[in-house]
């Protein structure tokens, strides 16, 4: 399966060649980069027959020789990875094409093309990996590219800042924030991967599916759910789900092409992909350890998804920046995907849940990439990030307007566009879980989605021309439609959301058909009874979709399209609405809280510790010890050395001196005294002689 290897290797080689191609000239470098991404897409499409036939191909070679538990490098080509690889590579190619014009003339383009191709390669590596460790390489690789590309304008010129004061952040800060926040999730994921590895001795996904020992051991020790939840932290971070979602709005500081590719269409889906893989592994283990053992995990997944969908959608209602609306919307829509995958596990109807999740993933990738690219064109023309400084663009940019309208309607789930079918599928599996609260939450999110989509389109395109634009025109700037190389990619994407939408059911059937090949044969389809409250899930979800459109669409139309009421004055007029607005505008205060908890507190803690523990205690202790030693030496000097030893020495000397002094008369040289001495000695000798001779 050469194509699978080449698929991810080609863009990485392309990335590494970028600096060399840059030497040959700018044109060579730019077009070369696009060609490499096209090659990856072509290789990916060569894999499609495998998905259609439902085959699974698995190849691997030795990599890290850990005794007893070797690690391999390999590819796993199955319908899921093929679908992902094609979505990633084709959308990437279109965005690379768009970049040719969009990034034209920017400084640092070698860096841009390097990171873009490196990203594509790593993303394809991620989806085609046969094992978790290798997947982690891709996982962190895309994170690194995301970091580099968010901070592409690292000089932090004012015009590239994201947000509104006081919550305004420069690109280099935003990139760092993204990296560190996602990294926090990756830590959990790494723990889980390593724990599973300790039990199973493998990272390989097919082996984890076939070898069930690890799961039963984990279950017996009560660690299965904790480990899976730790694993979930990775996807939560990467896919910007609550509680690690706060990095994605700031990620909009990067070039719009980057936002489209990394922060809408592909990288942020990596988490969904991994959860889908976990769901597949879980599905193949259910006949051994029962699906109940995974129940808690999937409930958490579903609720995180459902809650995030709602949380982010509410924030999109009040956003001022065009790209921020889309960013919140991305977080919200990924929540839907997670919800579908969670529902898959709750109902144990893995095929249907997986289909809904992946279907929505694909449809979102298409329409959101289109939306982002179109918004890039708008930003390019208007030279502002705020929607309220645009307005009236319908007249000047009709192509962009049409494309963006179609994509936004698809996002809102308006039939017969692709988004309608995928969202309906999600709502359907959500209904089947029997969790009414979750279902209501996701239906409400659908309503909000339509509302903010209408708001976004209206303020940008339908409102009267803003002062800012008039000023621009006064300065002699001509507001005009962008060039075809820019609009072709997003129109193509918008067009496909329309075409695929018309074929909606067939597309869903295709996903259902090919994904069911992966789920082990003979597994428990609908073993669990549908918890539906006596309702047919299809009818319930259809009803919910339609009523959401009505509930969200009417006020949206009333306020923003027909402009019968002024939303600003209504909000200003009511204390409660004003409070709600402020709450949503401040992102539920979660962002602020995180800055306090994870930035301010650790840094102040570090400073305090530096002052009191490092300098105060440790250095103080060291100086204290040396000081005490010194003092001790001085004391010893005074009392022992001077007091005792010296005095002893002087004492001895004095004694000797005294003896000498008293005996010095012996040495006077006076003959009289000498004669006395001679007489005394003679007497002594005489006495000794007498004693020795025995006389005495």
């Amino acid at each position: 399966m050469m194509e699978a290897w080449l698929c991810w290797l080609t863009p990485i080689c392309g990335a590494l060649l970028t600096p060399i191609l840059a030497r040959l000239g700018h044109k060579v470098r730019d077009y070369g980069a696009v060609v490499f991404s096209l090659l990856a897409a072509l290789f990916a499409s060569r894999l499609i027959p495998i998905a259609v036939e439902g085959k699974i191909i698995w190849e691997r070679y030795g990599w890290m020789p850990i005794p007893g538990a070797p690690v391999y490098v390999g590819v796993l080509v199955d319908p899921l990875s093929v679908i992902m690889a094609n979505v990633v590579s084709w959308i990437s190619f279109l965005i690379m094409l768009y970049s040719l014009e969009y990034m034209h003339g920017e400084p640092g383009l070698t860096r841009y093309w390097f990171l873009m191709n490196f990203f594509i390669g790593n993303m394809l590596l991620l989806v085609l990996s046969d094992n978790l460790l290798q997947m982690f390489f891709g996982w962190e690789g895309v994170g690194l590219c995301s970091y580099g590309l968010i901070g592409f304008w690292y000089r932090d010129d004012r015009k590239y800042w994201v947000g509104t004061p006081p919550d305004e952040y420069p690109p280099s800060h935003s990139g760092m924030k993204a990296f560190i926040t996602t990294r926090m999730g990756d830590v959990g994921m790494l723990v889980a991967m390593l724990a599973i590895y300790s039990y199973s001795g493998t990272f390989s996904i097919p082996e984890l599916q076939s070898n069930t020992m690890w799961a039963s051991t984990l279950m017996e020790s009560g660690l299965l759910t904790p480990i899976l939840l730790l694993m979930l932290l990775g996807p939560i971070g990467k896919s910007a789900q609550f509680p690690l979602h706060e990095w994605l709005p700031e990620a909009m500081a990067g070039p719009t092409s980057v936002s489209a590719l990394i922060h809408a269409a592909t990288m942020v889906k990596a988490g969904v992909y991994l959860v889908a893989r976990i769901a597949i592994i879980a599905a193949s283990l259910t006949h051994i350890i029962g699906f109940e053992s995974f129940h808690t995990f999937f409930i958490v997944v579903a609720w995180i998804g459902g809650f995030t969908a709602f949380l982010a959608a509410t924030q999109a209602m009040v956003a001022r920046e065009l790209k921020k609306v889309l960013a919140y919307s991305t977080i919200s829509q990924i929540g839907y995907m997670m919800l579908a995958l969670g529902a898959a596990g709750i109902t144990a109807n893995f095929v249907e849940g997986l289909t809904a999740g992946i279907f929505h993933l694909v449809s979102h990738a298409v329409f959101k990439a289109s939306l982002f690219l179109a918004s890039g064109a708008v930003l390019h023309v208007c030279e502002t990030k705020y929607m309220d400084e645009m307005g009236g663009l319908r007249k000047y940019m009709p192509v962009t307007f049409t494309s963006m309208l179609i994509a936004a309607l698809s996002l809102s789930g308006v039939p017969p566009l692709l988004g309608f079918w995928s969202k309906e599928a999600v709502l359907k599996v959500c209904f089947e879980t029997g969790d009414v609260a979750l279902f209501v939450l996701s239906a409400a999110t659908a309503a909000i989605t339509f509302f903010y989509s209408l708001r976004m389109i209206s303020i940008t395109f339908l409102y009267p021309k803003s002062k800012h634009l008039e000023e621009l025109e006064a300065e002699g700037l001509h507001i005009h439609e962008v060039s075809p190389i820019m609009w072709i990619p997003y129109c193509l994407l918008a067009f496909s959301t329309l075409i695929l939408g018309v074929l909606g059911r067939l597309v869903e059937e295709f996903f259902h058909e090919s994904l069911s090949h992966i789920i082990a044969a003979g597994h428990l389809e609908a073993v669990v009874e549908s918890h539906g409250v006596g309702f047919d899930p299809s009818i319930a979800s259809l009803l919910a979709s339609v009523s959401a459109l009505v509930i969200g669409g009417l006020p949206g139309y009333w306020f923003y399209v027909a402009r019968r009421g002024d939303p600003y004055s209504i909000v200003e007029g009511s204390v409660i609405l004003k409070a709600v607005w402020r709450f949503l505008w401040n992102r539920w205060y979660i962002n602020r809280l995180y800055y306090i908890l994870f930035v301010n507190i650790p840094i102040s803690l570090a400073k305090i510790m530096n002052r009191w523990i490092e300098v105060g205690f440790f250095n103080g202790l060291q100086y204290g010890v040396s000081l005490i030693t010194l003092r001790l030496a001085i004391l010893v000097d005074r009392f022992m050395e001077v007091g005792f030893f010296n005095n002893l020495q002087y004492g001895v000397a004095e004694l000797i001196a005294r003896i000498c002094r008293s005996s010095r008369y012996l040495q006077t040289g006076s003959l009289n005294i000498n004669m006395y001495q001679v007489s005394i000695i003679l007497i002594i000798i005489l006495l000794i002689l007498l004693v020795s001779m025995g006389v005495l």
Partner: protein
Amino acid sequence: MSLPILIQAVLTPIVLAPIVYLAGRRLSHHVGWLAFAILIHSTAMILMVAGSEYLEVYSWVPRMGWDIGFKLDGLSLPFALNIAVLSTVIAVYSIPYMEHRIGDRPGEYGSYYALYLLYAAGMLGAVLATDLVEFYIFYELMLIPSYLLIARWGYGERERIAFMYFLWTHIGALALLASIVAVYWVTGATSIEVVKTILRNTRIPFQLEAGMATAMLVGFLVKMAVLGLHVWLPHAHAEAPTPISALLSPAMIGIGGYGVIRIALSFFPRFFTAYSLPIALWAFLTMLYGGLMALSQDDIKRLLAYSSISQMGYLLFGISSVNMLGVSGSILHYLSHGLGKGILFMIAGILIMQTELRSISRMGGLASKMPLTALSTLIGFLTLIGLPTTSGFISEWMIFGGVIRSSLASGSMDKLIVAILGLLATMLTAGYGLWTVRRVFFGSIPKHLEEVREGSVIALTPIIALAILTFVIGVYPAPILDRLTQTVMLSLNLG
């Protein structure tokens, strides 16, 4: 008798040091190339026999049964390789740096490089030694030249700091000597292999074993500067001449870790198994503390010094797992940290040379002026953070995999929690690393730095060489890993 190859690698720099000193008078700063050539020879000697296990033994004091031996096996290979490669490339890096530091006092170049060679040989000898006495001598041999290097060409209160450095590490060495004497008294041998066999086969009272092991551990941990024994490190590493910092942090302190694994762990496995949790906790606190301290620094070299303390915590963390995966991870981490921190200290030196600054808060926006330096800094920090495709990831996943495996195997929930906390502490590395990159290289350029230019080619080449190496090991670690894991498994009897 095998060919005298490793002994050449160690003794040539020692023997030629006086000649380098004399040549320095004539050649001025060019004498660095001579030192470089000598170290290239040492590196080549090591690479020549790196293919398989290689042992040379020479009789030294026959009456005492002391041999002098040099052994290159899977365990000492990553250490020897790191020391040889780092000291070789940093010899080149020293040429522009010491020219900047010493200026036109040509007499000093000779003594700098002579001491440099002695220092490198001391480190190399320590990791290749097969005998405890021999190990101890080399262990002290690396102390004295580095003391002089700091005292003579350091910054700030260099004499006082060098003295402090000497005292601390010497106290550590004395604790080590005490336990070597005790081991000799118990076993009657000094050869590491012989002592190991004797200790494995005799049942000595656990208290005695614990006493010897503690003394030894403390001796080595002073060198590794784990929390509580770290006081000397930030001073010494921050104020040493930068090329020496780039050897102290990445190459020397990790030798403490080598000692723990090669000597303490292989002599006293029971002790390490029994005290696995406290050691893991100590390691975790070191990681956390070093990281937090790094976060609060403004002086770039001090920041890197604290980061080294934190990274030594990882080494000890892996050792605390007492299994093949974790210990191999630790050994590999010595190499990863060596590469990453080697890059970063050399970068700090380039910043000092080009901007005359050490304070991070006075820098900013340098990426456009020094793109290669910025890229290398990022690579250095990513290696420390443990991003996949850098060698840092391979070692980090093995360390944490080892600890998690050991905690699951022993069923100890406390240890699992410490493992998770340990991984969380890696967030701090990401925090101070990327924050430093941002503060130094991104944003707008302050006025006083507008004239800054990229570092010289001679200074950048060693950095790029290390950067390439970190990717090579990160993507294809098999050649090192293969022998490393085998040796750890067989020679330490770890599973």
